[in-house]
């Protein structure tokens, strides 16, 4: 049955996806040069689907989300490629048109709810603001709609909260308000940038449940950006693992966790402390994500962080290839990859303190 599901997915991927981004390349200006933070990403999102984008900070996952929404400073960034949402190319529309799309067709949930909300306006006003821009409801209808939204995201005493200011609410409540604003106009696509990173475990599971409901009920597509692999395992339908501006592995969530291929995916998975199995030491990925100007543009970008692998296992021009049905991997180094036995990382630590 699972196989059927997958093949159906591949079909719809090529045909009518909700969002299809092709070869997106977002470059930021540093000094006089442009450096690509998102480098040739191709990704589709369908209705009623959660696509998770995973990676360390600096891997370009937020830059990709901001590119879809056109939130980058146009004078300092260079956006190439095509991003189609329901047949409209988001990269070429005017700012005015884009303003109509943002908030209406695409909703965005930001990481930090406190900075995403205006501290000087009441919760109600901030929800109504979105409705003002995109709907022609009367004042009374807007009020009712905003109360309805607050109830929908599970806020008790919605009438009271409507008149409160952001500082009067707890972190989880604030994040719910941000979600209420994001879904105010029933967007077809929801981009959630680390929606639960700042929250406690119990509230996190409530927010995730809420997102799941939205997906099911409104038939929305969701892009979930996170570095928490537990959240990915709970939520995602498909997963894109990003490293240094590129997708290094793309697969449905079951095959990715059952059979992770790319060294980066495997390293990430083994560096998470698990509640279930006990391991004395966690795997450490050597080094850091290179900064933009220093990012390698040739060959396998992950090469420097797995120095024990020989050079000839990497491809010269790594490309994303389909190795199984719906499972894409970049570069050939995954075929030979193994973890080094001991942690060289800590070997030189002085013990006679």
């Amino acid at each position, binding site marked *: 049955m699972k196989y059927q599901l997958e093949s159906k997915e591949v079909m719809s991927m090529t045909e009518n996806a909700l969002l299809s981004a092709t070869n997106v390349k977002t470059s930021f200006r540093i000094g006089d040069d442009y450096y690509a933070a998102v480098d040739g990403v191709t990704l589709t999102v369908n209705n009623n689907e959660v696509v998770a984008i995973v990676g*360390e*900070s600096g891997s370009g996952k937020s830059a990709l989300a901001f590119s879809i929404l056109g939130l980058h400073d146009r004078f300092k960034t260079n956006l190439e490629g095509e991003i189609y949402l329901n047949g409209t190319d988001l990269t070429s529309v005017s700012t005015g048109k884009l303003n109509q799309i943002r908030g209406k067709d695409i909703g965005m949930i930001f990481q930090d709810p406190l900075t995403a909300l205006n501290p000087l306006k009441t919760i109600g006003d901030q929800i109504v603001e979105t409705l003002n821009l995109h709907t022609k409801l009367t004042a009374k209808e807007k009020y009712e709609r905003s109360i309805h939204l607050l109830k929908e995201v599970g806020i008790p005493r919605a009438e009271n909260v409507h008149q409160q200011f952001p500082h009067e609410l*707890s*972190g989880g409540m604030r994040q719910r308000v941000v979600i209420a604003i994001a879904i105010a106009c029933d967007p077809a696509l929801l981009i959630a940038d680390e929606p639960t990173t700042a929250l*406690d*475990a*119990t*509230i*996190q*599971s409530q927010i*995730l449940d809420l997102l799941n409901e939205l997906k099911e009920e409104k038939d929305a597509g969701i892009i979930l950006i996170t*570095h*928490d*692999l*537990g*959240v990915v*395992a*709970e939520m*995602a339908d498909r997963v894109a693992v990003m490293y240094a501006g590129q997708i290094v592995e793309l697969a449905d*969530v*079951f095959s990715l*966790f*059952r059979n992770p291929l790319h060294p980066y995916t495997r*390293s*990430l*998975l083994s*560096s*998470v*402390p*698990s*509640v*279930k199995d006990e*391991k*004395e*030491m*966690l*795997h*450490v*990925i050597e080094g*850091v994500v290179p900064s933009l100007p220093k990012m390698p543009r040739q060959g396998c970008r992950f090469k420097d962080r797995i120095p024990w692998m020989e050079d000839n296992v990497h491809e010269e021009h790594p490309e994303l290839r389909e190795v199984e049905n719906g499972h894409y991997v970049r570069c050939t180094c995954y075929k030979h990859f193994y973890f080094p036995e001991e*942690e060289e*990382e*800590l070997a*030189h*630590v*002085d*013990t006679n*303190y």
Partner: protein
Amino acid sequence: MSILTINNLKVHYPIRGGLFRRKIDVVRAVDGLSLELQRGETYGLVGESGSGKSTTGRSIIGLEEITEGEITFEGQNLSELRYRDRKEYYKDIQMVFQDPYSSLNPKKRVKDLIAEPIRNFENRSKEEELKRVQELLEIVGLSPEVTYKYPHEFSGGQKQRLGVARALALNPKLIIADEPVSALDVSVQAQVLNFMKKIQKDLNLTFIFISHDLGVVRHMCDRIGIMYNGRFVEEGTAEDVYENPQHIYTKRLVAAIPDIDPENRKEQAAFRRQVKEEYKETEHNYFDENGSVFDLKPVTDTHYVALP
């Protein structure tokens, strides 16, 4: 002998208002907490934000005014002592803060950052001080070349190592780590956790590990205390708490941990719903009429639960 004993610790903050800013009410951040810590163990303080776990940590090293209760460190009751005499003991208790980006002064060089506690407590010549700083850097796995760098030149994980190096400067016996990895990426988090385990073994340190990430706590800690509204709801070894949670609050907390295996997604969701139902139905059995937590009662030798 236990290294640290906390007996019925209470930290209350006054809420002032009305005429002359009178004390009209109190916030009970920590409300009757007792704890015993053995040398060389790692104790995990877990709870949601606002449960008082950080306040507990901060009052142990004297950053909070204690309303009531005793903190005994190596047989000496700290709350009895005058500040001047207490200082001696605070040498042995150090803290690692949550956010490495804001806990290091950006205007100071590494040398001055790490030497600060040494300058406060010890009389050393410049050469000795420099030698000690470089020793410490070596312990945390940084090369001596970084001595004259500034914090912004380091990555997140390296900054957190500097924070640990500073905490180690005076050969402390107890380190309180307040969410030391919450601000870090998974890969960097692994690095810092490994390294903390390593120095603990090498230097026979006692750790209090404050975190809301239950996966990390499971990985690091021998014993765990779950806090809610300033009190313990459950205390026990990692196994007691994770495999056999007794209090409904702990059950809910454990159920909320995301499962890393997507195949279990359905069962996990069902389990969570079931716990949620149970929580709704039996919540009142676990809290008294004011909504506060009962006193801890032993279930087994190591496992304590707050039951009526």
